[in-house]
């Protein structure tokens, strides 16, 4: 099933529990299946799926606003950097985290992310910039240790 992993990867960083994330993705795929006639051939199917997922997420009233539990993110403890990055990511606001995940991890352009999130492109770009800055600051002590 295409794009399922990408959707789940982002969903798990939006919702605090793995089951909520799976429910979110499942609902997304069902809506996509039901509304497939609405998909314009030749456009970006991945962006279309993400847009549906964020619509579902926001339609649920963003019940899960607290950050995901780190221990439930399936990060192997021995990978210290992975833990640090996950912590830094969780410390970001949901808006910043979302933009960072879409643009940096999933490789969407700012314009595509703006389409998915139904935001002006300028808002996406400024959130991305602030998100990078905060992430950089969070990871700085770790970098010092790593380079020492």
């Amino acid at each position, binding site marked *: *099933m295409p794009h*399922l*992993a990408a959707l*789940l*990867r982002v969903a798990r960083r939006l919702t605090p529990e793995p089951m909520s994330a*799976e429910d979110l*993705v*499942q609902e997304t*795929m*069902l809506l996509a*299946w*039901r509304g497939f006639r609405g998909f314009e051939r030749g456009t970006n199917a991945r962006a279309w799926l993400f847009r549906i997922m964020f619509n579902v997420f926001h339609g649920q009233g963003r019940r899960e606003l607290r950050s995901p539990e780190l221990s439930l*993110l*399936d*990060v192997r403890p021995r*990978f210290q*950097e*992975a833990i640090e*990055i*996950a912590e830094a*990511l969780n410390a970001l606001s949901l808006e910043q985290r979302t933009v*960072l*995940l879409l643009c*940096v*991890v999933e490789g969407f352009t700012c314009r595509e992310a703006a389409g998915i999130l139904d935001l002006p492109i300028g808002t996406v770009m400024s959130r991305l910039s602030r998100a*990078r800055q905060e*992430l*950089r600051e969070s*990871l*700085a002590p770790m*970098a010092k240790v790593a380079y020492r």
Partner: protein
Amino acid sequence: MTDDNLDQRLRASILSEDLDTSRLAAAVRNQIHGRRSHGLRWVVAAAAGIALAIAVSFAYRAFFVPPSVCVAAAQDHEREIVKGAPRHWLSDLSAIQSLAATRGVPASAIAMLGTTGYRLERGRLCFLKKQIYLHLVYSKDGAEYSVYLRPVTSEAAFHHSVREVSIGAEDSAYFETDQLDAVFVGSHSGAAAAFARAGSRVLTKL
């Protein structure tokens, strides 16, 4: 740390995560198939409901609703026989048989009905529901009965067995043979049906 370095570390960290989507994929597939079959069940149920409604409607019409021509025959009988509206009648058997032949009603049918204990009094052509019928009047024990005959048509769609209906003050019975549609009307309860049953026995021999 440059943006590129930061992005690379973030991507490397998150994309290295082991994600098992098999359970989720199975759940999505199950739900899609479930909805499909659920939808199919609705279609089947709706089709069955429509078929049942049609069957009930046919059964109701066949068993409870008298054919419109029977209603017209009962009204015609009441007007022409009971109330004696002036009409031009033929009373000569051969003249009636000739008239019947012009409408495709076998002349022998008229004679055969006369063997049932009922006596032919007169006859004429009439319109029932815009169709031409041979209207024959028979008598027995002082009572008069109307018999309406015409070659079998698909419009009437009568039954081979005699069906009896009461329409207003008149008692009516109808049936069809391989050749004729027949409607019998009398003013006494059960009398038309008795004549129709006797008529059915002789007319099926045509």
